[in-house]
């Protein structure tokens, strides 16, 4: 589902709303750890907000194998927690394929496609609360922190469905930046 313009205040209201608002405002919630693309400003903002909430963050570099086998796999099997990310598509694509072997799946994803003028189109797939929160995101920069708040307050009691699974391949449009916010559990 694609969304257009809305106010930042609306986005924040949504992520602190009744469905997602069980955790404290500065709590990591169920998040075990998070992954971010340090190449992108929104990825850094996402990580900074989660670090403030004491979530362990990993930079998704060129070597996704090191990220999965070295950083994520062992930790997740120990805690059974969620892992969130704001990354490029290829990182999510690989992690989603790898997660199946650990009995995990993508619970929601929000694609943020940014054109050369900085306009952002957000497309969400997943539970209604995510769709609602995404609808209120502004179609411009500044979504990294909001997606971090959303991830930290996501609850596993959200109904699971197949909408968020395998939505795209690893490729990104040539003239645009395609980022994705996601939760795997």
């Amino acid at each position: 589902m694609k969304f257009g313009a809305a106010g930042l205040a609306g986005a924040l209201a949504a992520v602190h709303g009744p469905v997602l608002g069980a955790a404290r405002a500065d709590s990591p919630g169920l998040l075990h750890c998070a992954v971010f693309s340090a190449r992108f400003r929104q990825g850094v903002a996402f990580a900074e907000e989660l670090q403030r909430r004491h979530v362990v963050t990993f930079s998704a570099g060129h070597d996704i194998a090191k990220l999965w086998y070295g950083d994520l796999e062992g930790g997740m099997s120990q805690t059974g927690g969620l892992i969130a990310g704001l990354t490029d598509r290829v990182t999510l694509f690989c992690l989603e394929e790898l997660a199946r072997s650990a009995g995990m799946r993508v619970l929601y994803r929000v694609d943020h496609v940014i054109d050369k003028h900085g306009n952002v189109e957000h497309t969400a797939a997943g539970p209604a609360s995510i769709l609602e929160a995404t609808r209120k995101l502004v179609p411009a920069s500044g979504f990294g922190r909001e997606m971090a708040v959303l991830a930290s307050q996501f609850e596993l009691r959200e109904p699971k469905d197949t909408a968020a699974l395998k939505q795209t391949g690893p490729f990104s449009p040539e003239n645009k930046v395609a980022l994705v916010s996601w939760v795997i559990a």
Partner: protein
Amino acid sequence: MVLPPNVSEADFNAALNEFRSALGESWVFTSDEDVALYRDSYSIYWGEPEERVASAAVAPVKVEEVQQVVRTANKYRIPLYPISTGRNLTYGGSAPTMRGSVVVDLKRMNRILEVDEKRAFALVEPGVSYFDLYHYIRERSLKLMLDVPDPGWGSPVGNSLDHGAGYLTSHFRDHFGSHCGMEVVTPEGDLVRTGMGALPNSETWQEFRYGAGPYIDGIFTQSNFGIVTKMGFWLMPMPESYLTGTITVPRYQDFEPLIEEVSYFEDLSLIGMPQYGSPIGGGLFGPPSPDLAALMQNGWPSMDALENYVVAQKRPAWSVELNFYGPEETVRANWQAAKRRFAKAIPGAAFQDGELLALPIPKEKEATQGDKPRLGIPALEVFTITSRNPMTNSDPADGHADFFAYVPRKASAVWAAARVMYEAYREMGMPPMHGPFSTPINYYSRCFIMATLVPTYRNAAKNARSRELFAKVMDRCAEHGFGCYRTSPAFQDRLMSKYSFNNNALLRFHQKLKDSIDPNGIISPGRYGIWPAKMRGNRA
């Protein structure tokens, strides 16, 4: 929920209950959100009725459970589709060949049963990935090198059974060729060990592959005659060093002697997989540059026109990187010998020394090491590289269906295959991926691959066009004797119809085996065109 064909809901539910009794409730997956995990991410039928989706999945943890699943499947005529890691994207991934099959996910059978450093072999279960085996060897500082495919997230068992390949010297990079011994649950639930594994108390199961009597291991590759539950592999002793060297040659027609000289070193097992290129542009796929596109306005250029084009570009026409493995003394000597032979065979050949690396690569340098698969290190970096390749555009593909044509190991065949693929794309009105400077892949040492990647989408109309293109490339290549060696389930019937000598005698033989070995047709119906008799219909 999708049901298996010709199975009632009551029978299916009864089978699922028996699966649960055998495996435990947790390891039988039937919910939509669980089953959807097994969709093929690169499906060329995504979202269409023909998409090969599973009805359920089961995850046994031991051989006895696999046998029980097979017995239940026979009882209720449930089609099964075994996967190891299910990540062989472009060839079906984790999705079954036939819609409605129950995926037998062998991910929990992930034990590394034996690694013998001195005798240089491993025995593993199907759920063991290349990463798992690599980490096992590394953590124990065993002096062994794995030959890995790229990406390396698959399993040695699955990759070998699908005729996958790697990068080291020829007798290791043919992954099925370097296996030794297997254990198979038959479609009727029996358990067979091949080669010396059939001899109780033998210690040579992973050392002598043939045992006595007919050698049957090959029938379990790209087939549906059983579920492989163990497999042995020969490993390469860790070489002391790795040396690369690059050769360039000036003229277009120098490609022929370049290939002949490389093949000399290849057939002596003195090098790993050679990496051909063209400094003028092109490389593996070689979409024509603007200059070359202008030259090709009136069709494929003549040899004279190409030679003149090369001269005008003031760069060498071709290159090849050679990789040497062994003690420092021998890799240096082999590179010197290569320089001598190429200089004599090809006037104007030039040489560039590469870096000499001591092996194994220190752990702290591994993350930043380039070209990991050539050093036996599994990687996923191919995804981050290709996600930004020229395939991507304003409307990027979501995946690709690979067509890897096997062509003779000679320049004229490379050029012929590139032209066939080029013209197939042109017939479709699509920008060609190939041109006169396209170069081959040499996974299997005795012949070349000319590869093309047909895009796949989450869009039915675009996928329809891609299927048409894929079929055209396959048809045109087959007319020239260029056979594809593996393909996604969507094209397996079409592919096998090309291997038609003597009124499809090969397929008819496969069918006879199927009818005998798997009379109820429960294992992977349709895989590589082998359908059970009851489903054969007009396909035969």
